[in-house]
């Protein structure tokens, strides 16, 4: 039983990360029909901006490749870590909104092929920029919450780490803010109108482009926050979030690609499966990623709407 609770706690942190990333993916998908493959790279870039803001660009790093980035060696800004994370999140929001204006607005009626091309192009560019600026090696970011060896509370004979509590507290606050934004403001109403029927919304005089910008900002901010939370716990490289992206994609698909609630639930389920299945079946943990892809394929084949998504009927 203790072991079960421990595994439950272990999966909770990743659950918060996958849920935020999945929610970011879903926010964009339901409003534009676009799967943002570049989500992880945008998040990573924002987290590195946060690193610079926290004065950590000269921070401790692993591996011989460290310090090879263009921006390494420049003095960072001496913000405290929470402020730096907040600013990085705002950076992610602005970057997301800018991407909508500069790149995606022109492709509003683009074919799936064109949308995939542009997101893949974006993924490649952002990943290239991150490795250019900060090098490809993993490094240790400053801690947002106490994450040392003995920073945990005992609950039911298992350790619940402060970082897990802090991450979920942050995520819950963000979720409340997003829910209020979507349900209590005029911009949120416009956004929901667009997701339910874009053409009608346009005819009703809703500024579609500007409202989609809001969705991109929310997604960019969520991704940035997820990356900052990840970076403050594990050693972080430009490719860390790409590893999380596959779980987030599985989570979003499992929950239903157009359901925000599904993204959260899917994120928690996928993260639990990631710790429980290898733990109880004695499988190597790296292979949990295979389970994520199997989830992806099985859900898309047999129940494309996922747990909470809208069932789409295709007229033949």
């Amino acid at each position, binding site marked *: 039983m203790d072991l079960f609770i421990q595994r439950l706690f272990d999966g909770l942190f990743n659950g918060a990360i996958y849920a935020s990333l999945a929610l970011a993916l879903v926010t964009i998908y339901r409003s534009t*029909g*676009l*799967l943002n*493959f570049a989500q992880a790279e945008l998040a990573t870039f924002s987290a590195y901006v946060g690193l610079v803001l926290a004065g950590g660009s000269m921070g401790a790093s692993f591996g011989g490749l460290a310090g090879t980035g*263009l921006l390494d060696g420049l003095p960072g800004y001496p913000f405290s870590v929470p402020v730096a994370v907040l600013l990085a999140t705002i950076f992610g929001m602005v970057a997301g909104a800018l991407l909508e204006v500069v*790149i995606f607005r*022109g*492709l509003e009626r*683009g074919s*799936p*092929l*064109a*949308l*995939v*091309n*542009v997101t*893949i*192009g*974006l*993924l*490649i*560019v*952002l*990943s*290239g*920029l991150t*490795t*250019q600026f900060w090098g490809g090696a993993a490094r240790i970011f400053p801690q947002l919450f106490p994450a040392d060896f003995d920073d945990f509370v005992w609950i039911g004979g298992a350790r619940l780490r402060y970082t897990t509590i802090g991450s979920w507290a942050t995520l819950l606050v963000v979720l409340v803010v997003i829910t209020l934004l979507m349900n209590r403001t005029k911009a949120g109403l416009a956004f929901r109108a667009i997701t339910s029927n874009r053409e009608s919304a346009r005819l009703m005089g809703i500024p579609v482009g500007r409202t989609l910008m809001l969705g991109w900002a929310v997604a960019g901010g969520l991704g940035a926050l997820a990356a900052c939370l990840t970076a403050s716990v594990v050693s972080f490289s430009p490719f860390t979030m*790409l*590893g999380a*992206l*596959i779980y987030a*994609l*599985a989570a979003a*698909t499992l929950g239903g690609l157009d359901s925000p609630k599904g993204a959260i639930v899917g994120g928690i389920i996928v993260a639990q499966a990631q710790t429980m299945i290898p733990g109880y079946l004695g499988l*190597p943990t*790296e*292979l949990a*990623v*295979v389970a*994520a*892809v199997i989830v*992806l*394929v099985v859900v*898309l*084949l047999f129940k*494309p709407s996922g747990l909470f998504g809208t069932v789409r009927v295709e007229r*033949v």
Partner: protein
Amino acid sequence: MTPAPPRPKNQNSSQGFTSLGWLRWVLPVALIAVPLLASELQLRRFTQVLVLVLAVLGVNLVTGYTGLISLGHGVFVGIGAFAMANFLDEWNLTFFLALPLAAGVAGLAGLILGMPALRVRGIYLALITFGFALVFGPVARRLGSITGGPTGRSINRNLDPPAFLGLPEDYFQHYRYALCLLVVGIWFWIVRNLVESRMGRALRSVRDDQLAAVVFGVNPVTVKAGVFSLSAAMAGTAGALQAYLFPFVSHADFDVFLSLRLYAAAVLGGLGSIAGAIYGVVALIIVPALNGLIGIIGSEEIVFGLGLIVLTYIAPNGIAGIVDRRRAEADTDSTTS
């Protein structure tokens, strides 16, 4: 006597899709000139990139001709390379047996992975193949007995040209180059015949209107699975040749960015065009070279990514589309004057 009507500018005629145009003259000259001018090291590098044209052509066949977005062809390059390493080292097969077998293994993998994937369409297929590309690295890392695990494995077989040719050692690299060129040529010939045949029309019909294709008696699932498997075999051949050219294979060489680079090259060159695959690989060769010369942006990735974004706007049919358009304009000019 009525003047001959001007040739239509349409992009859909099979002529516009498969003809190589001026490449027909430039390409042979370039391919013969390279081994004469390049140093041994340059020739080795050039050959390694050259064989990637097969993988790009595979992506092109699947995404361009059949409309199935594949972000995961790097997986099949990897499978081909690992299969080749095992056939050469563990099974002691000769190169000429190992190569088609490695391609076959990749083709089979394409069939197995394609079966579920091809039942979904559009962006969902992109999603699934992207998933494949992301997990291949970790899986290959784990299967140490086949792939050499985290460190990779070297191929210890003697891969020198057969002794009866009596080639001096200075020309070994030229032999490898010629051999790879031959294999690439055979694949191009197969694909060219395929897309010009009844099968090629079936592919395009599935891409343009699946329902209409069904009405005309084309079974989309069979067609898609077949073409996906074939393109996987092409990518596998590219991987097997890379393992032959550089006898060391590691999971790190087949990460998600290989798949994305192949996809980018196929789109940049021009989807749905055989010449496009060649332009795409020319871009794969030239962009890093130019980058090295200019040295402003240290990363060729950034150039590729930006190219992908910009071309989606200005030239959805890639470089081949630009070339075709120029040619069509030149044609109308000459007929009107």
